[in-house]
């Protein structure tokens, strides 16, 4: 049952120790920073986290790793210039790493969300990352058997949600969001705008069927466009999209 909650803390309150949590974002774009912070505050530990990276600098996922809340991470690119908390945990043998090529990572979650039991991918064939996996030749080309990755929870950031839980994203902040939303048993979304009106059905990117919990948290994404749109809408009888301003949402928070 779709729910709209007021705080990030409420949104993540169901996440328990040992859960597998899919966390969206590529770099800072689409990273649900406030939900990750709330997960940190919730104290949940022994987590398996799926993300493209393994945390940057001293924020978000990096802090979860620093506090040793993450037992295992499944990602494509853990090593970055500012991934010092992951590096330390990894070298100390205090975090398990499953390294997955980025496209296989996305497709494994897509498979989970689509009810596919596994798939043959050409990516990684003949490399270390395919060692021990079943290989098959199909029409003269080699493929490696990959398995689905399911989440107990997904934490993602979208741009706006309508009252039916339908989501739209903003630019490259879309990245893993739509796929993770399908692959988790319970999908938790933070949005910059909670809309009072339904989205145009033709524009919906993630249909509400995949969405369980929504929390409105203005983060500054698309503020300029929103103000322009609101100025335009002020001259119309009915606004085309959002009716709540960022300031109203902040007050509500």
């Amino acid at each position, binding site marked *: 049952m779709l729910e709209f909650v007021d705080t990030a803390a409420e949104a993540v309150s169901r996440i328990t120790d040992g859960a597998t949590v899919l966390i969206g974002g*590529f770099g800072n774009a689409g990273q649900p920073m406030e939900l990750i912070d709330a997960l940190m505050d919730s104290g949940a530990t022994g987590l398996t986290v799926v993300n493209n990276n393994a945390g940057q600098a001293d924020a978000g996922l990096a802090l979860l790793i620093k506090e040793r809340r993450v037992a295992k991470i499944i990602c494509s690119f853990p090593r970055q210039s500012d991934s010092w908390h992951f590096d330390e945990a990894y070298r100390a043998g205090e975090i398990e790493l499953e390294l997955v090529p980025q*496209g*296989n990572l*996305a*497709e494994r979650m897509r498979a989970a969300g689509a009810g596919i039991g596994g798939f043959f991918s050409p990516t990684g*064939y003949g*490399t270390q990352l395919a060692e021990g996996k079943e290989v098959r030749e199909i029409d003269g080309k080699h493929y490696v058997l990959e398995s689905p990755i399911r989440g107990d929870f997904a934490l993602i950031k979208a741009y706006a949600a309508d009252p039916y839980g339908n989501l739209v994203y903003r630019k*490259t902040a879309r990245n893993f969001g739509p796929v993770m939303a399908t692959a988790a048993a319970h999908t938790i979304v933070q949005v910059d705008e909670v809309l009072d009106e339904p989205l145009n059905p033709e524009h919906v990117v993630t249909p509400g069927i995949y969405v369980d919990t929504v929390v409105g948290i203005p983060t500054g994404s698309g503020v300029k466009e929103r103000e322009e749109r609101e100025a335009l809408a002020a001259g119309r009888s009915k606004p085309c999209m959002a009716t709540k301003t960022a300031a109203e949402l902040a007050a509500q928070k």
Partner: protein
Amino acid sequence: MSEQTTEAADVQAFRSTDTPLTQDELARVIAEDIAPGSFVNLGIGQPTTVSNYLSPEKKVTLHTENGMLGFGPEATGDQVDEDLINAGKIPVTELPGASYFHHADSFAMMRGGHLDVCVLGAYQVSATGDLANWSTGKPGAIPAVGGAMDLAIGAKDTYVMMDLFTKKGDRKLMAECTFPLTGVGCVSRIYSDRAVLLLDPSGVVTVRELHGLTFEELQERHPDVRFEKAGA
């Protein structure tokens, strides 16, 4: 469209100059070989500079694996938007006709053979087109692969842009790669400061261009690789 260029380029007769290409000259050579209307992914780092030489009239569309077709030059000042970045996490701009899509679609687009050309850097490439560009296999190093393995095998044509030798003078074109592989038999061309080389599964390397290196020197530095001059 890329097939057309491949044919046109393949029949180009061997040519040589006395000095190695600069990085900018090399970027220009690659840009000239990309057919009008192509969909192209340029890897992080040096390959990105190829975009400086793709004229708008060519109508080449750039793909970034974090979910966008049709991005423009790096964003500056007011244009910077943290929701609009490329795979190198650099803020970029949106060109008319751009589109956004999620990660699974983005890699499906690549894996499904819809991209014409991908240009990547490399540690080593084998004569049969094996690519090593994600790990030097150094013990104790933290592994990270990103989209490298998907990119290597995804596009219709994978070009490598690199120096032919390392700074220490070691060769990077091998009979067989000694570093961990990114992909098998996936590279069709090497664009380097000293040579433009066309690869094929036979392992016989066709030399299209040499710059500041003679054919004999090339052969001498790679005694276990068989070379043939283009158009010979």
